[in-house]
């Protein structure tokens, strides 16, 4: 009885160690290896990119930093990989100082792996300090006037993939990867007004809000957290960090559920005992 009652007060250090083990073992040895099923919001995001018209570019908006790297980077990588595969040139539009370097490094790696060239298949527009709403409004009217140059200081009018990109009409899709509530800005000023398909890559905690916009058709698809990236990798038939980490996430979720059950067993035992006394 006492043992069962003590289940509600396991030392937090033991809980931490259990979590480390639960995450580390699947990441290290890939012991489970189950692939996620592709949800309709992820499939819809995939189809949207498949249907980008020739001559248009994609934009990957990067608002994440090292803090949410585990969730947002696999999303960014999955979308970049798909765009490279499909031959849709894209521009990285970073709003976060750290995210600028992190996203550029990730795309550089994939570009090298797939033999893609900066300036032809992708560019980075360089860090933009805040004021997302205003910059989106401005780029919709005049893309080259708003950004002028890429990260290397080369005028957009001289870069092969952007020389003909004038305004919102030349943008085929926008992917927003973010841990913050910035998606309304893209919906209000680009998606709704100019009929540009918007895709959403939020962290898991932001996912519940995203379903509203999916339901209304204001976003065309969503990659919910790291599992969204893992599902996208399944569609791309590529095994990246998302799929490798999916098992670790399974183990962590199972551990939380088990701990809650165990804690409640202890709680009920203690309550029963108090009632008996």
């Amino acid at each position, binding site marked *: 009885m006492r043992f069962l009652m003590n289940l509600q007060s*396991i030392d937090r250090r033991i*809980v*931490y160690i259990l*979590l480390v083990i639960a995450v580390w073992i699947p990441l290290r040895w890939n012991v*489970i290896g*189950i*692939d*996620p*099923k592709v*949800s309709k919001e992820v499939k819809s995001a995939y189809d949207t990119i498949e249907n980008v018209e020739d001559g248009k570019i994609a934009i990957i908006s990067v608002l994440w930093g*090292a*803090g*949410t790297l*585990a969730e947002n980077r696999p999303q960014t990588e999955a979308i970049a990989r798909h765009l490279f595969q499909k031959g849709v040139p894209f521009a990285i539009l970073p709003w976060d100082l*750290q995210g600028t*370097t992190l996203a550029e*490094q990730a795309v550089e790696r994939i570009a090298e792996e797939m033999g893609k060239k900066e300036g032809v298949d992708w560019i980075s527009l360089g860090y*933009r*300090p*805040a*004021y997302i709403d*205003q*910059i989106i*409004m*401005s*780029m919709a*009217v005049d893309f080259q006037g*708003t950004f002028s*140059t890429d990260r290397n*200081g080369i005028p957009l009018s001289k870069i092969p993939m952007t*020389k003909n990109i*004038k*305004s919102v*009409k030349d943008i085929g899709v926008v992917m927003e990867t973010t841990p913050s509530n910035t998606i309304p800005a893209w919906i209000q000023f680009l998606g709704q*007004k*100019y*009929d540009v398909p918007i895709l959403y890559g939020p962290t898991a905690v932001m996912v*519940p*809000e995203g*379903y*509203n916009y*999916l*339901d209304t058709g204001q976003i065309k698809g969503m990659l*919910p957290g790291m*599992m969204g990236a893992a599902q996208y990798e399944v569609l791309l038939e590529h095994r990246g960090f998302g799929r490798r980490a*999916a098992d670790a*996430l*399974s*183990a*962590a*979720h*199972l*551990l*939380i*559920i088990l*701990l*809650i059950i*165990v*804690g*409640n067993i202890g709680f009920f035992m203690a309550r029963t005992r108090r009632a008996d006394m």
Partner: protein
Amino acid sequence: MFGFVYNLSFIAIVPKQGTSLWIFIIGSLIIGVLFLFLLTRVPNRYRKTLIIGVTFLAGWFYFLEFMIPGNREAAPIRTQLKAAEQDLRKVDQDLSAVIIGANNRSVRITAAQRHIDFALEDLRKAQSLIESLKKPTEERYQAELKKSDSFAEKHKLDDKLSGRGEDGKIQNLQTKTLAKTIDGLSSAAGRTDNAIRLLQDVRANIAGASDKQIPELRGAVLSAITQTSFAQIEISDNFLTPYKVPISDILQVIGAFTVGIGLYSLGSIHGKSIAKRRPGWYNSFAFFAALVLMTLFAFFKEYLPANTDGRIISESIYKILFSGGLAALQATMFSLVAFYIVSAAYRAFRIKSSEAALMMMAAFFVMIGVVTFGMWLTNGLSGSLTSLRLENIQSWIMEVPNTAAQRGMMFGIGVGGLAMALRLWLSLERGSFFDKQL
């Protein structure tokens, strides 16, 4: 004159290396510091007025840009398109009634046909109006190009200064605006054409359509509504719209200034901490060391000549500092949240009431249904039991109850946000911002 001033922005091409780069950096720094200094010299009694004025004007610009209708010449086109859209919405209502099995099917179909005819008529009128407006706009564009050319020649402006693009055309505010208007008219014509084709197809098939075909026809009508609606947006630019770009440039500069002010503020606090040897002063020292090292090596890796030892070493050190230091530290900080969440869930999630039990059930299905293990657990369920798979239950919770609750909250937040936005715009907020700090 306006065009000439706007063209000055084209001069600001950032040099990549050499003396011109250093002159550019030092010059920008001096201008920035001077501007900040001037701001600090504004007497206290005028600061509130200054902030109110700037906030109000900035908000007023976007408000007016949103509210003022597009140019007057395009107004008849918008009226025709609006009329067509309204007729099409009536067609949608008629077809929806047929889909849900209304008794008067034939009456509804006849009404839909009539409204389609009205819409087609309006769209054709809009199309001819667009064509009649496009021609004079193109002539004005050509005249404006000539005027800009002679201005550039008269003042002996080179390509950069005159804003001449690779196509040889001068891209100042006026020429850009006219080019965009022509572009918008072309797009509107394209969209109107698409809507007409869709409707002609619906009109041809609606009379003999079976119940199964009606939803398809309704889909085509909805597409035509979208096309008509977007055609109106294509020609909705007003005289303020072109200024969105320079305003956005100004905002980006202000954003960059805030980074500078943040650095100044941090430097001031940590500098005092070191000077006075306050407890933990070595943390302040670490701040300065990190700031200087990151700045220096970021510059060196970018601007030292390529393939030199200095550049290669700088790149390596920067990588160590950024990936090995900054990114790793921040990722570690954030990952600590996971430990707290697990610990907190274990300690706090007790079934003490029926509401808590309901919440726990929802949490269970969402947590298990979203991960691969949960998907695998109920993989065997098929046929009529498919909806009981954990991932499907999770999906239903997220799409139905969650969306309903979220939407309710968003309405409330939206109303609150509107009130807050008005208070900010009109500087009605009170508290330390105006009462103490300034």
